[in-house]
């Protein structure tokens, strides 16, 4: 059975995903998932990772409301139906269109 997870892209990064808010992916680990997202939307790469290839220091990844670092980080194996949230750690800023 093919595994499916959904990934929610934060507002700040949607300009690199053609405005797409939710992605369906089938990677089994976080490094694979980043690769999958970047393959579909190459422009997002430098915004997700720093020069050493690590997820940027100020981006947090949650799986079903839990910080992925508590689940084993890069070693965590996604389960079918997992909901992955990408959130800037110093998040905030209303959507541009709210500002007129």
């Amino acid at each position, binding site marked *: 059975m093919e595994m499916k997870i959904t990934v929610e892209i934060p507002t700040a990064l949607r300009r690199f995903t053609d405005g797409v808010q939710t992605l369906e992916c089938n990677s089994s680990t976080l490094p694979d998932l980043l690769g999958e997202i970047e393959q579909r939307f190459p422009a997002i790469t430098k915004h997700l990772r720093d020069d050493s290839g690590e997820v940027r220091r*100020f981006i947090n990844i949650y799986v079903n409301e839990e910080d992925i670092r508590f689940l084993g980080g890069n070693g965590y194996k996604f389960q079918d139906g997992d909901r992955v949230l990408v959130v800037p750690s110093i998040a905030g*800023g*209303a959507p541009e269109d709210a500002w007129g």
Partner: protein
Amino acid sequence: MAEHYQLKCRECGKLWGNQPRSFCDECLSPLEVVYDLDAIRPLFTRKNIESGPTNLWRYSALLPLPEDYKATIPTGFTPLVQARRLGKQLNTTNLYLKNDAVCFPTLSFKDRVVATALAAARRFGFQVVSCSSTGNLANAVAAQAAREGFDAWIFIPSDLEAAKVVGTQVFGAKLVRIAGNYDQVNRLCSQIAEKYRWGFVNVNLRPYYAEGSKTVGYEIAEQLGWRLPDNIVCPMAGGSLITKIRKSFNELIALGLVEEKKVKFFGAQATGCSPISDAVKRKLERFEPQKPATIARSLAIGNPADGFYAARAIRDSGGWAEDVSDPEIVKGIQLLAETEGIFTETAGGVTTGVTKKLLEQGYINPSETTVACITGNGLKTIDAIQEEYTLTPAIEPRMTVFESFINDRMVAVAGN
């Protein structure tokens, strides 16, 4: 630019002007307010400051306020007291306490950050102000919103101390209790801030809010007679305060108000929630998030927004960080109260306990000038300490009964 300040990305340096935004679209790193110090230099002088009001607005020239902003809340300018009796117990002669347990109007240093945040909220035209909070910020936002005529929506973890809950509701704020810890509350708020046109003081107004913390540093320097201390001991929750005190000292040096000095910064956390002190002690480049388990609920942030910068500021300054257990926190509260007559909340117990530890370990030189930051009031966390005390049975209001009571007590005391 019309004003002498604007937002700048702390990592990539991109300038953002002034807007309700906390992070950079390019690298998702935090934004910070930067100033045109040359333009401010003639305004920010000892003379101008000393002739200003006796509250934090005396430092307005170095705060991100809209032009012609008329502040109405006389917050800040709390006492800096020399701690002779506490110092004697800890074998140091130059210990001072910055006492924000009596900050106006809600008895914590959060009154300062809310003062600058609401100035920004007004400027950007928000009618609703909001925050995620471990309690003190909730009180401060609710109170100042009431006075300034904003509607307030406050988000807290559901297990907060009763005094902090009632101390928010009393101001008419809408209180949303979340079944989760602060980090979960904060994440929810960051999602809400994307959808609602609300001024979240510690989310989309965060750069402006955080600048209010600098006034702790300005006041310490001014109250020491325009000189910097050798050491600062500061409690850490999100990690912002310690970095902002450091920024304030650097600004005072740059503008020539104090002599240059390398002040060492020491961070204090509860062992049950110590991601920043852990990172400092283990020399980690990135802190590891924790699940908070401590009575110091106001410091219970397991994924601190400014944790990276706090750890770096401590390291760069030549300081250190420590943490104390829950029993040590209680002892810290009692020690401060019994030696200095200051009743602080659990965060102040952390600061006192860590100051003691750092002196014992030799990280702080006892002959140097050290300022410990007491950031909150003990009346808000009575439950943390109530069990330490028992009540004697009430006695009849008669002299003979009292004399027999005191005789028993004296025997008991002598017996000890």
